[in-house]
C-alpha cells in the first residue's frame, strides 16, 4: 500500500508537470512562427502599408449628403410605401369592403363573400374601409372595372384560381394576391402569394393533416416524386440516385405509381419546377411529406410571413444529386422538425379557403399596423397568427400558447369570475371558499339577474367587484377590463367547490396554461342512430369537455371568443348556457387540438339542456373536441400514507 501511494503521488506530480508544459507550448508557438508548408493557400496579401491606405469615405463625407427631395416610383411600378394609402386605415383594425360583382356568381364565390362578411374584417361601406377587395371570378367570367376603382389604389385583387381571361382593366396601383406567382413578377412586400387551391377545397374547417406520428415510420420510403399527371411515385432510399423521371427509365423495379390525387406516403416529396405545381405542394403539406421544391422560381405562399425554411426545402434542380445526398444525410432532428411544421402550417393557413383569405387579410393588416404586427414567432409556431390576435398583445408570454413551448409557466394568481343569473342569489359560500385560496387575486361577480345586486357583500381577503351583465349567456366570455390576471376561474352561482380543490386545480392549470382545467365533465360521441353528434353528462371513462361553471382557463380565450368567432356562433351561445359551455370547449379544442384536463372535486354535472353541438360542429366545419382518459390527482391522492403528509388532504373525502 505504501509503495502504491508513493507511485500515485509520483504519477500525479508528473501529470501536473505535463499539464504545465502543455499550457506553455501554445505560447511558445505564438512566439515563433510556424514554417510555411508546401501548397499553403496564398491568401490576400498582408500589405506593409495597410495602415496608410485611405478610408473608403472621408469622416466628413458620410453625413454631408447632398440634399435631395425624396423621389417617387419610376416606370409605374409599385411598392407598399408609394401605392398604398395608409391614412385611410384607422382604429387599429383592417376594414375590408368587398366590391360587388355584377351578374350571376358561383356557389364558391358566394361562399367566399359570406365568409368575409361574417369575419372581423368586414365593412359595409367603401368609404370607411381601408382595403377594397376585388374577387376575380373563378372561371371564365371577366369582370369589368369595378366602381370606386381609383386607379387601383388600396385595392386587393384576389384571384384564388388561375384566371384564364385576359385582364380587362389595368391593375394600376392594386395589389395582386394570386396563386403561384414567379419571383420575376412578384412585388415583395406589396403583392401576396397564395397557394393554388384545388377546385374542391373546403370553404371552412377543412381536412386535418394526415400525419399520424411525429417521426417517419421506419418502413416508409424516403422519397416521393410528383408526376406530371398528378400522382406520386415513391422510391426507396437505395434507388434515390435517380428518382427523376426520364433519366432512369430502366430502373423502375422498387417504385410504384400511385394513381389519382392520393396523398404521398414518404418522408420527402420532390416537386419539379416545370410549372406552378402548387397542387402537389399542398398535397405534400397535408400529408406531412416534406416538400422539396426543385426550382427557386416560384414565390412560396405567404412567404412574407411564413418561414418556409422550417417546413420545406427549396433547392435547385441543377444540383439534384447534391440535394439527394443532403436529404439522405439529413439528421433526424431536422426531419422531425420539418415534418411537424408542415402539419402546423397546413392546419393553420391552408386547409380551407377561409383560412387562406383570412391569412391574406391578416398579412395586409400587419403591414398597415407595423408596430402592432404579429412577431415572426406567432406566425411560425402553433397555433398560428390567425388565432393569436395582435390586438390582445404582441408579446408571446401574454398568450397561453407559448409558455410550454419555452419551458416557462405563467406566474401570478387568478381572478374568480362568478356569473350570477336568475334567480339572483348571491353565492356567499362560494365566495368564501374561493377567497380562501392563497392563489386568488380578486373576485368579480358578473351580475346578470333581473334582481338588483345586494348592496352589502361579505368581507373577503381579496377585493370583490360587481360587474353589471347584460343578461346574455355569452356575457361571461366578454374580455372584461377588470380581469387583471392571466388565469380566470369561471364559476356559476350554484357551483360548489372547496378551497383545496381550487388550489390544486390552479397549480395544475399553471402547468397547462393553454388548456381548460375543470372539475365537471361531459363527453361527446357520434350517435349512429341520429346520424349526428351527441353529448352526455354521465360519468364515463373518458371526457372531452369541462364545464365553465367551474373551470380555469386563460383570459385570452375571452378575447378570442369575442373577436374572432363569427357572429352566428355567439348568438347560438346566447340561447342557452350549455351552448356557451360547448362553444368555449370547441374554441379551446380547435386552437390547442388537445383535450381539457379534469382535476378531482366538484359536484355531479348537470345534464345538458339543449342540443347545439351539431350546429356548432357545422359552423366550425369539423368536430374539434378531443377526448381524454385521465384525471390529474395530487401525487399522494388516496395513497396509503398518513394524511398529515399530504398537501391536499381535504380532497381525500369520498
Amino acid at each position, binding site marked *: 500500500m505504501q509503495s*502504491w501511494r508513493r507511485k500515485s503521488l509520483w504519477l500525479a506530480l508528473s501529470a501536473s508537470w*505535463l499539464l504545465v508544459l502543455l499550457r506553455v507550448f501554445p505560447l511558445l508557438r505564438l512566439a*515563433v*512562427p*510556424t514554417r510555411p508548408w508546401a501548397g499553403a493557400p496564398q*491568401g*490576400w496579401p498582408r*500589405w*506593409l502599408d495597410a495602415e496608410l*491606405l*485611405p478610408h*473608403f469615405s472621408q469622416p*466628413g463625407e458620410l*453625413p454631408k449628403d*447632398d440634399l*435631395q427631395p*425624396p423621389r417617387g416610383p419610376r416606370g409605374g411600378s409599385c411598392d407598399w*410605401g408609394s401605392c398604398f394609402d395608409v391614412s385611410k386605415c384607422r382604429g387599429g383594425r383592417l376594414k375590408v369592403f368587398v366590391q360587388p360583382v355584377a351578374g350571376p356568381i358561383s356557389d364558391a364565390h358566394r361562399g367566399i363573400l359570406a365568409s368575409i362578411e361574417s369575419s372581423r374584417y368586414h365593412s359595409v361601406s367603401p368609404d370607411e374601409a381601408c382595403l377594397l377587395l376585388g374577387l376575380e371570378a373563378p372561371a371564365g367570367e371577366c369582370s369589368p372595372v369595378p366602381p370606386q376603382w381609383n386607379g387601383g389604389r388600396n385595392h386587393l385583387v384576389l384571384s384564388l384560381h388561375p384566371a384564364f381571361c385576359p385582364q380587362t382593366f389595368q391593375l394600376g396601383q392594386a395589389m395582386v394576391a394570386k396563386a403561384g406567382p414567379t*419571383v420575376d413578377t412578384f412585388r*415583395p412586400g406589396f403583392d401576396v402569394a397564395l397557394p393554388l387551391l384545388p377546385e374542391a377545397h373546403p370553404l371552412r374547417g377543412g381536412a386535418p393533416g394526415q400525419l*399520424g*406520428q*411525429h417521426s417517419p415510420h421506419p418502413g416508409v420510403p424516403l422519397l416521393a416524386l410528383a408526376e406530371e399527371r398528378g400522382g406520386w411515385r415513391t422510391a426507396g432510399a437505395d434507388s434515390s440516385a435517380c428518382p427523376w423521371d426520364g433519366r432512369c427509365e430502366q430502373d423502375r423495379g422498387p417504385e410504384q405509381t400511385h394513381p389519382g390525387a392520393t396523398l404521398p406516403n414518404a418522408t420527402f416529396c420532390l416537386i419539379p419546377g416545370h410549372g406552378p405545381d402548387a397542387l402537389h405542394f399542398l398535397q405534400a403539406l397535408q400529408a406531412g411529406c416534406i416538400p422539396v421544391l426543385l426550382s427557386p*422560381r416560384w414565390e412560396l405562399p405567404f412567404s412574407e410571413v411564413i418561414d418556409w*425554411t422550417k417546413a420545406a426545402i*427549396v433547392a*435547385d434542380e*441543377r*444540383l439534384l444529386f*447534391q*440535394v439527394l445526398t443532403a*436529404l439522405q444525410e439529413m439528421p*433526424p432532428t431536422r426531419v422531425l*422538425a420539418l415534418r411537424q411544421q408542415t*402539419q402546423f402550417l397546413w392546419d393553420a393557413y391552408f386547409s380551407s379557403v377561409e383560412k387562406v383569405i383570412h391569412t391574406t387579410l391578416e398579412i395586409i393588416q400587419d403591414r398597415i399596423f407595423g*408596430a402592432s404586427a404579429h*412577431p415572426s414567432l406567432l406566425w411560425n409556431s402553433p397555433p398560428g397568427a390567425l388565432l393569436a390576435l395582435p390586438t390582445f*398583445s*404582441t*408579446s408571446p408570454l401574454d398568450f397561453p400558447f407559448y409558455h410550454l*413551448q*419555452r*419551458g416557462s409557466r405563467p406566474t401570478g394568481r387568478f381572478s374568480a369570475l362568478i356569473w350570477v343569473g336568475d334567480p339572483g342569489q348571491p353565492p356567499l359560500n362560494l365566495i368564501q371558499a374561493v377567497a380562501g385560496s392563497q392563489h386568488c387575486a380578486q373576485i368579480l361577480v358578473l351580475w346578470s339577474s333581473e334582481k338588483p345586486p345586494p348592496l352589502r357583500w361579505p368581507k373577503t381577503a381579496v377585493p370583490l367587484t360587481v360587474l353589471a351583465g347584460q343578461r346574455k349567456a355569452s356575457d361571461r366570455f366578454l374580455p372584461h377590463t377588470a380581469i387583471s390576471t392571466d388565469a380566470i376561474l369561471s364559476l356559476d352561482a350554484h357551483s360548489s367547490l372547496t378551497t383545496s380543490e381550487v388550489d390544486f386545480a390552479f397549480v395544475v392549470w399553471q*402547468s397547462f396554461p393553454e388548456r381548460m382545467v375543470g372539475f365537471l365533465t361531459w363527453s361527446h360521441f357520434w350517435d349512429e342512430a341520429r346520424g349526428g353528434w351527441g353529448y352526455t353528462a354521465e*360519468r*364515463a371513462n373518458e371526457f372531452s369537455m369541462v364545464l365553465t361553471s367551474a373551470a380555469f382557463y386563460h383570459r385570452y380565450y375571452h378575447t378570442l371568443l369575442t373577436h374572432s368567432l363569427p357572429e352566428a356562433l355567439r348568438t347560438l351561445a346566447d340561447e342557452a348556457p350549455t351552448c356557451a359551455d360547448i362553444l368555449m370547449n370547441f374554441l379551446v379544442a380547435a386552437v390547442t387540438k388537445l383535450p381539457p384536463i379534469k*382535476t378531482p372535486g366538484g359536484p355531479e354535472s348537470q345534464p345538458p339542456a339543449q342540443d347545439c353541438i351539431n350546429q356548432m360542429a357545422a359552423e366550425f366545419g369539423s368536430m374539434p373536441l378531443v377526448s*381524454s*382518459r*385521465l*384525471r*390529474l*390527482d*395530487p*401525487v*399522494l*391522492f*388516496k*395513497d396509503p400514507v398518513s394524511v398529515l403528509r399530504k*398537501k391536499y388532504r381535504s380532497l381525500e373525502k369520498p
Partner: protein
Amino acid sequence: MASVAWSSTRWHSCSGTMEWEEEAACVIMCASVKYNIRGPALIPRMKTKHRIYYVTLFSIVLLGLIATGMFQFWPHSIESSSDWNVEKRSVRDVPVVRLPADSPIPERGDLSCRMHTCFDVYRCGFNPKNKIKVYIYSLKKYVDDSGVPVSNTISREYNELLTAISDSDYYTDDINRACLFVPSIDVLNQNTLRIKETAQALAQLSRWDRGTNHLLFNMLPGGPPDYNTALDVPRDRALLAGGGFSTWTYRQGYDVSIPVYSPLSAEVDLPEKGPGPRRYFLLSSQMAVHPEYREDLEALQAKHGESVLVLDKCTNLSEGVLSVHKRCREHQVFDYPQVLQEAIFCVVLRGARLGQAVLSDVLRAGCVPVVIADSYILPFSEVLDWKRASVVVPEEKMSDVYGILQSIPQRQIEEMQRQARWFWEAYFQSIKAIALATLQIISDRIYPYAALSYEEWNDPPTVKWSSVSNPLFLPLIPPQSQGFTAIVLTYDRVESLFRVITEVSKVPSLSKLLVVWNNQNKNPPEDSLWPKIRVPLKVVRTAENKLSNRFFPYDEIETEAVLAIDDDIIMLTSDELQFGYEVWREFPDRLVGYPGRLHLWDHEMNKWKYESEWTNEVSMVLTGAAFYHKYFNYLYTYKMPGDIKNWVDAHMNCEDIAMNFLVANVTGKAVIKVTPRKKFKCPECTAIDGLSLDQTHMVERSECINKFASVFGTMPLKVVEHRADPVLYKDDFPEKLKSFPNIGSL
C-alpha cells in the same frame, strides 16, 4: 484499492434494484442471483505490469515533448519567418494594367436576374461542408490610356474586407474550384471611381463571363444629382452587395443588402449600455437632414419638450475639435456617438442616399432605430427580422411618429433595444462581420438544406442558450393502433425476465418485445425456452455490458412509443401498463413513468439532493418502467451533452436520472407520473444491511444530480404536484364499468 473493489461487490448484491425494492414486490430471490441487471463492473488490477507500463508511457511522452521543443526552436524556422503564410508587400508595388479606351464595357445591371437565371450553380458542385468557395482576384492598379489611374487602388475598408474573406473558411486560391469571384477592384464608394473605366476593368477580369458568379461590394452608391440607389457601374450579371438599395433596384433573392459601415465603430470606444429608461425618448442626430424633415422634427421637439432632442451640425466649434464627434442644439454641445446612449428611440432618416451610416451607430448605442426612409431595403433583410429591432415609419407619417412610438409597450421596447445591440455586435460591428454575413447569405441560397435558421440569425446568444426547443412540438395524439415496443434490459436473471415478458405480453397495445441481452459471457436461452407470446419477440445481444444499451435507438423499434422496463418489474398490472400507454399518447413528448422521484435543494450542504420519500411533488420518473418517445433514444445515444454517457456507464448507475435531465432540458416540460405508489419491501434486500446500502445509494444518486446539473449548466427538471389516474379512479362507481379497474392493487 479497497474502495474500487467495493463498488464492484456492491453490484453483486441487489442494491441495483434498490429503487424498486423499497416499494415493489421482490419476487425473485435477490440473494440467490449472482449478478443483477447491471452485471459486474470492471475491477482495476494495479500490478507490477502496470508500473512498467506507466513508466514507459511517461518516458515516451517526455521524449516527444523534448523533440517538439527542439523542433520549435531550431534556427531555420526563425530565418524563414519572413515569407510565412502570406507575402508582405506594398500596395504601391502592384502591377499596373493599362485599359485601352475601346476595351469592352459590360451591360448595365440586369434587373431580372435571379439565382436560377443568372447564377451558375454548377460551379458550386458537391461540397461536404456546404459552404461556397470564394476566389479573390489579385490586386492590380488600373490606368487609362493616358496613364491616369481609374480609382484609388484600394481603400482600407476594402482591404479589410478581402482580408476577412481570405482568412475565412470560404476562401480558395484555386480559381477553378471557386463558386464565387470577388474582384479586388474597390467599388465601395462610387464617388472615388470613374464609372466607365471601372466597368472596363471589371470586363477584362479573367473569369468575368458577363459577370456570372461575381460579387461586388458597394456601400455608397449613386452620385449627384439623382443619387441612384444601386451602384452605377455597369456590371451585367454580377451580384451586388449594396448599402442603400430601394425596392426599385434590389433584386430580391439575388442581391444582398448590406449596412453602410460606420468608421466610428473602430475609432470610438463605447462601453455597452443595457436597456432601460433613458433621458430622451426620441433623438435625431443626423446632420444633413432635408429642410422639410428638419421642420417636422423641430415641430416634434416643440410639442413634446424635453423628451425629444433634435441635434444638428456644430457651427461654432474651436479649432482642432473634430466636428464628426460633436453635435449641437443651439449652443449646447453633445458628444457623438455617446449621446445616442441617452435615447430610447433614434431617428434614422434618409438623405440623398437611403443607406445611412448612422444606423450602425444607433444600433451600437442600443437605441431603437426609427427608420424613416420609404422603400429602403434594410441591411440583411433577407435573414434579419427587423421588426424585432426597429420601427419603420412611412415618411408621410413622420408627424405622428411620437404617438406611434408611445403605443409600444415597455417590455417590447427593452426587447428591441437588446435586439438592436445584438444586430450590431453580430452583423454591423466590423467590415469582417459584414463580409462574412454576406457570404453566409449567398452560401445558404446555394445549399438551402444546410442554411442557418431564423433563430440562429436573429436570437441573441442569451436567448439561444436559455430557450428550449421541443423536438416534438406539434400537438398530436398518436393513434392507439400503433401500440408500443417494450424494451427489457437484462443481464442473466432469466426466470424473472420470463415472468416480466409474460406479464407485459398481456397488455393489449403491446406490438413488439425487445430483450436487450447485456451479458457477453453467457448466451441467451434457446429459442424453445422463451415464453410463447402473441407479439414478435426479438433478442438483441450487446457488445459491452453498458447501461446506455437500454437507450440505444435499435432498428427493431418500429413504434414511436417505447416502454423501458427492468427485468424484475413484475408487479405492474396489465391495466396499469395499458393506462400508462394511454397517458403517453396524450403527452407523447414527455417521460411517462410509474415510480416518481424528486430533487431538492439541500440548504445545509448547498447542493442538490435526491429524494425518494412520500412527497407531494415529483420531478423525475424512474426508467425501470417508463414510456417515452423513441426519438429520445437517439438523443440519449448521440446528443447527450458532456461526458454524462460515459459517466453513467462507468458508475453503472443513474441512467434514468440522465434521461430525465435530457428530456426535461430539451422539452422544458415536466414528467408525468401515473398511478398510485406501490408499497412493497424486498425482504431479502433489507436482510443484507439494507439501511446502509440505502444511504450510500441515495448519496450516489444525489451526486448524479449535482454532476448532471453542472454539465447541463442549469437545473432543467420541473417540479409538479400532480399525477395521472384514470378518470374514475377510486370514484364511487361500479368497478366493472371502469376501463382500468386493476390499478393500484396488490
